């Protein structure tokens, strides 16, 4: 990575593909400029000396509480399906897969 990051239209398309999003040509151009600005700003981190520093992925460093390994908090079929865009009484329904 160099100090001047630029983002091309093809990279925006790749990021959209990874994110399962579609971007119009207009959006592609706008996002390319904005992402370039944002990622350039983030290059500030390259100046920080991180040698020997363990990453901190969560501030929760306490021991997790444990419980008996028994099923609880079970949702009914009705509850699980109640917000589905398309469902019958048993299943979520999606377009044909194969």
């Amino acid at each position, binding site marked *: 990575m160099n100090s001047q990051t630029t983002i091309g239209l093809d990279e925006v398309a790749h990021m959209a593909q990874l994110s399962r999003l579609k971007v119009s040509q207009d959006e592609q151009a706008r996002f390319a400029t904005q992402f370039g600005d944002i990622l350039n700003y983030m290059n500030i981190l390259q100046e920080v000396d991180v040698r020997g520093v363990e990453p901190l992925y*969560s501030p929760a460093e306490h021991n997790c509480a444990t419980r008996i390994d028994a099923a609880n908090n079970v949702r009914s079929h009705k509850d699980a399906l109640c917000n589905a865009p398309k469902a019958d009484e048993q299943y*979520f329904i999606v377009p044909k897969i194969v």
Partner: protein
Amino acid sequence: MSELYYQSLSELTLALQSKALSVTEVVTVCLNRIKTLEPKLGALLTLNEEAALQEAQALDAAGPDKSKPLWGVPVTIKDIILTKGLKTTCASKMLANFVPPYDAFVTEKIRQSGAIILGKANLDEFAMGSTTENSSFHPAHNPWNLNCVPGGSSGGSAVAVASGECFASLGTDTGGSIRQPAALCGCVGLKPTYGRVSRYGVIAYGSSLDQVGPMARSVEDVARVLQVIAGHDGRDATSDTRPVPDYLAQLKSLPSLDGVRLGIPKEFFGEGLSPDVSNLCHQALKACEEDGAILVPVSLPHTHAAIATYYIIAMAEASSNLARYDGVRYGYRSQETSDLQELYVNSRTEGLGQEVKRRIMLGAFVLSSGYYDAYFRRAAQVRRIIRDEYVAALNECDALFCPVSPLTAWPIGSHADDPLAMYLMDAYTLSLNLAGLPGLSLPVGLSSEGLPVGMQLIGQAFVEEELLKIGYRLEQILPSIGHPQI
């Protein structure tokens, strides 16, 4: 005596418990206030009028219950927190019709405490924003100046509290989303320590950063709500098991700030702080000194790297968390689909807003092969450095005391096309979330333009009671800002 809707939650509770006021009376006053003001403010997305009135009548019929600390108190809840049977939209077209089949932990607690939920508060879509302009439905307006933003992302909660639509609200804070709107709207907001309040049933944005907290019009009111929502919950693996202290017992125990050591991080008082905010913050520091506080200069040298660190981590977590919106199990589904891939892509493309897409795509990028180490892993390393600096600074004092926002509320629309400029406004709030520490934002005065300025007290992990104690004393010695003229 002030108007009923501007009474403190503490005063209101006394009146309700003694039957000087009925719950129905209080709920009706708030609902009327909401109906009068909402066309101007846009603080709420869903009104729970019928159920609220029914609950009020049921409470009145049963009579006051001293075991319920918020008995009959009208509240609102940020629309990112699940409320069983009451629409929860996250201010997104994606969840425009989502009715949760269960309550979040904090909603359960709020209901058990006897509070009445009046409605769901507006926010930036999926809590991504600092202005509440990114709501897919309508922006919220600052009650002190309707042309200005209320801050965000819990902007609706701050507006509802500051304007007397309710007595308290629950917000969430991922990078300042409770403290900053509280500061910009002139109310009090607490971001608790990560793990103090369960995230069960809170729609995830940045899971290692998100935390629910109370917003109200005084430190005591905030303490009362925190008492209700704090505590362990086995359904959130990051929820902490240590006991919850009695926040009210010690609240008023400081007769002065005599001997209290307040750490002043020099990085928060430099370039970028507007003269108006700077003046009021310095006046507040002077008032603290006159009350006996010892101001201790401290340094947080990596503050300049906090914004980049935060946004890399928040975007990475967002891209992962928001992968669940696929148009299959809940949420928006595109009608233009011939196969499953298209269903995913079109539902997400049509259902999510611009800022959300930006963060998901950048998050996918910083996690992608070839960039993970340079961005995500490095950000997590800098996160540890920043956290350690906070811990070191807090070893030299009782709490840090610093500004919340570099500016007072700004005009709606002023940063619409420049997301980076918007991110830079979060400079003073987001490092707290990286470190997982608690922060209490409270008003310290009004600017020359009549807009509120807030400062935040930052403490060690799990010592919210210390922040509340100092905050309570600050409230006694700082001038009151009164209420907005709407």
